[in-house]
């Protein structure tokens, strides 16, 4: 019987080979190139030690600010998506009329491409001709109209808002799947004990939902740290360089032929991802077990 359930270890070999060949090896080569002056203008590649990393932290381009921007985006964009998505999921798992319709509507932006979302929102957020300011002025709230993509005080909120609009449905869907797996018996027992809505949320829903929360947080943080598309299409890193993140800088360095510097930035991103991702997964998984 045991023999029937166990598979030989070599079954993992094809997948492992693909993973090593297509991910581990290129990543290691990339790390290697980050210590060189590899560029488009010269066929020779020289070892330059930590020069590229020194440039990252000392150049006038302020890559250190881009790293901070990336970290802030990863944290804030996650909070902005996860909290509303959780409450929407709870709401749409209840007895709401037309809940399937609402689920579909909320999920729809997820299937749109970033390019389409960018084009739509660049138009919607234009200060003079955009729909948003038009509506605000139309309903007598002109003081709320703003320069959504060019005001340094508003641009990050706008990007994070658009990103939340696009990604909320996906996060919500994962929560709905998690909520549907929680047995109604727990809630019935809590009702008998006289537990209120908040008490049930804190003592049943959230602990039982930990696997879904883990998935959303881990996916969200890695997405946030690797963010590129939404910023590229909305602001292209502007106004000026205000919304540059690590990956837009990597893209720019590769485009300008500074491959060594580009790979150094990628390596830094890999380190940041590992430093944040591994402890995060461990902590979250531990909480799942505890709960």
């Amino acid at each position, binding site marked *: 019987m045991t023999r029937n359930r166990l598979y030989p270890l070599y079954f993992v070999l094809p997948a492992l080979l693909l993973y090593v060949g297509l991910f581990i090896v290129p990543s290691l080569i990339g790390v290697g190139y980050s210590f060189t*002056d590899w*560029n*488009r*203008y*010269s066929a020779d590649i020289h070892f330059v030690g930590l020069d590229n990393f020194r440039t990252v932290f000392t*150049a*006038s*381009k302020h890559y250190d600010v881009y790293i901070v921007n990336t970290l802030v985006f990863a944290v804030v964009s996650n909070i902005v998506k996860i909290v509303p998505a959780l409450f929407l999921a709870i709401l749409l798992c209840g007895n709401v009329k037309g809940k399937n319709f609402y689920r579909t509507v909320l999920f729809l932006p997820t299937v749109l491409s970033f390019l389409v979302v960018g084009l739509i929102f660049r138009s919607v957020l*234009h*200060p*003079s001709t955009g729909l948003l300011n038009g509506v605000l002025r139309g309903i007598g709230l002109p003081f709320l109209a703003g*320069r959504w*993509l*060019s005001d*340094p005080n508003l641009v990050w909120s706008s990007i994070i808002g658009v990103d939340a609009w696009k990604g909320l449905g996906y996060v919500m869907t994962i929560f709905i799947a998690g909520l549907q797996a929680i047995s109604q018996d727990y809630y019935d027992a809590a009702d008998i004990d006289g537990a209120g809505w908040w008490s049930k949320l804190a003592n049943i829903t959230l602990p039982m939902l930990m696997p879904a929360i883990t998935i959303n947080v881990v996916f969200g943080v890695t997405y946030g740290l690797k963010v590129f598309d939404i910023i*590229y299409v909305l602001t*292209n*890193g*502007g*106004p*000026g*360089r*205000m919304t540059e993140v690590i990956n837009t800088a990597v*893209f*720019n360095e*590769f*485009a*300008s*032929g*500074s*491959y060594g510097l580009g790979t150094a930035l990628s390596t830094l991103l890999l380190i940041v991802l590992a430093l944040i991702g591994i402890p995060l997964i461990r902590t979250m998984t531990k909480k799942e077990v505890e709960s």
Partner: protein
Amino acid sequence: MKKLLLLAVSLVSLAVLPSFAEKVKLTQMVSQDWTTEADEDLAKAFTKETGVEIEWQVNPSAQHHDLLKTKLNAGEGPDIFWIQSNKWTVKTDIDAPQNCIDFSKETWVKTMPPAKIESVSYNGKVYGQGYFVKGVSFPIIYNKTLFKELGLSVPKTVDFKKVCEAIKTKGVVPVYECVPAGWHHVLWVMQIGDRFSELQPGIVDKLNANKTKLSDVIGFKTAIVQLQEMVKKGYFGTDYMDNSYDNWASNLATRKAAMFVQKSGEINALSKDYPACKDEFGAFLIPLVDAQTAQADPDGPARFGYSKSKHQKEIKQYFAFLARKENIQYKLDHTPGMTAIDVADSVGVEQHYLPAEKALFASIPKSKGTGIIWQDSVSYVNDQWMDVGKDLASMFMGQMTPEQVVSAIDERRAKIAKAAGDTAWK
């Protein structure tokens, strides 16, 4: 009967299949503002004549260079691609010897004037083809009627500020500017490069020999400071960080704005696109740092063939087709913003300069002559055009000072020069 039918179908398939297999499609990647309907018409005419299809890949202007360079670096370039070409970018932007088809032996090369040939060549080999606007490079187009109504005359010095102030008080945006385009606002500084040469003769050679820096060039920082002042005083209006390049004509035609840095031939396009606009438009030189030298631009957008393309024969065929006299004339006649095209005199194309352009030429003192724009005379400036655009935008936002903008340009020049193995930087 069934066998006969099957045989007939097989024969028909055999006859038809080769024609499908032979159909060639050339992909052509271009920035959104560089081509017009005339280029598309010519592509269709080429398809009609040869059966070779042209598929356009039009990129937003702020992203074209990055996208193209990334594709070339990945070894996945389009069959034909465009860049803002000059004698340096041919190497630094697209590494022509590595990525481009050598057209040196093609007979059509002589349809381009010598300065244009130089701008698409590297180490004596011709890699590109460009037929762009001829005339004064990017003056300021202005609403002549509005100027008359306000009693304003064309500014030739920093009096420009007074003109802007007078227009602003009438509730009209003095100058339309579109920073999101990424490239346009850089013109204010780079298109007056010949003024810096006038103030400091021999400065271009010194810059290219790495004997001086832009931070030491008389007037260069002043131009940036004056540009910043224009923003601060509201001469670009309030939407300059959100405006789209495409809306310049509508803003000028509806008097929302009075001026725009643009190719002078575009006055023609403006009149045709907005027939209801009865205002007359003229052109004058950008007067920052009191610049009054006309500048020619032998560069401009040019197309190149990808050396790793499977369809090199068809690419050569297409370039030869575009170089025919009748096709060059068609491009000139059917491009609303183009009144003169930069081709060799021997081609015999009939140019159509506007009265406003003739007046502009006449207004330039003969003693000043015509210089060459700086992006074609100073090395490693054009390569960082979009970066300069980002720096200037940062300055408009108060995140950089003019000094930092100039230092950043110097820093990038040094970086590119070193990477390119320029001996002057060793």
